[in-house]
């Protein structure tokens, strides 16, 4: 019984991780500018790798190796989101304007600027 529960949880979490990796990669290829791409690709590391590592930790039943996975997931989450923040901040300070075609009414004075 316990085996079934653990295996189900492992399958659920790894499928979730694979889903986030897929979505993140798709977004990296398809989205228009730096900010939206970062928005997609940081999901790969935080949610994708995080949930796959969590699935591995459950698979190891929180033994010493499993706890190492938890620590790894924590480090990956902290570092990946920080690098995402740093890159987007640098892009903003350098002066890359966000893609605004989708909401032309919010910033009417700067419409049509599309820097990729």
């Amino acid at each position: 019984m316990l085996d079934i529960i653990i295996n189900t949880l492992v399958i659920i979490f790894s499928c979730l991780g694979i889903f986030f990796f897929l979505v993140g990669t798709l977004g990296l290829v398809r989205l228009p500018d730096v900010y939206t791409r970062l928005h997609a690709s940081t999901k790969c590391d935080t949610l994708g790798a995080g949930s796959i590592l969590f699935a591995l930790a459950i698979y190891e039943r929180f033994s010493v190796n499993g706890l190492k996975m938890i620590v790894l997931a924590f480090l990956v989450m902290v570092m990946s989101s920080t690098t995402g923040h740093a890159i987007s901040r640098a892009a903003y300070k350098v002066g890359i304007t966000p893609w605004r075609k989708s909401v032309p009414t919010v910033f009417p004075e700067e419409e049509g600027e599309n820097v990729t």
Partner: protein
Amino acid sequence: MKKGLVVFALFLLWILLVYTVIVLPPMGSPENPTNTHIIPRYLEKGVEEGGAHNLVTGIILNYRGFDTMGEVTVIFVALTCVLAVLGRENILRHTSKAEVSSVEKSVIVKCVVRFLAPFIILFAFYIILHGAESPGGGFQGGAILGASVIIITLTFGFALVAKKLSLKYRVLFESAGPLSFFIAGMVAIFCGQNFLTYLLPCVAHTYQDFVRHLLLIMVEIGIGVGGGAAISSIFLAMEKVEKE
């Protein structure tokens, strides 16, 4: 005329290289000397003769000790060339490109780096010291050590790192790689063995393995600390700009 000579010399070189390629043993053939006796020897006796449970470390530090010593010297020479061209940084005269820029540093990045940097340095030393037992070793650990210095420089500024890791100490650390190899080799010579032999006959038989392990770890620490100091020195030399 000159052009013709150059083309002729290149043609001769081309013939020589192509001839070398032709007489090389065929790719992946089971009769190659590497496959017939070198790899079986490494696999069967590598752990015992190399003195490290990690076979790779045993091979690169023991069987191919001279080769690794050359690699360490290459890193040292690269550092020397960079410093010969760019010159050392001077805290009083120089500042960094990151500090000249008008963008102030992000609080989030500062906070995370302050939290993570000790763990990165700890991990680097773990990799250096554990190289004889598990994957890792001096080169990898040294790269992480250098990367930690770089990330601290980028977030907390040139002046802090150049002061804390002052030239006085960095000069000593930079040459640690070649020096540790040299010391290990000379210890072997003084004990009546060949250069870079870690199994010393002058030590009592029961302690031989222990002494060999100590020497391997000393060389690993030398490579790691030397590589890390070289990377950080190259980075600081490239980062500096003149103060106005």
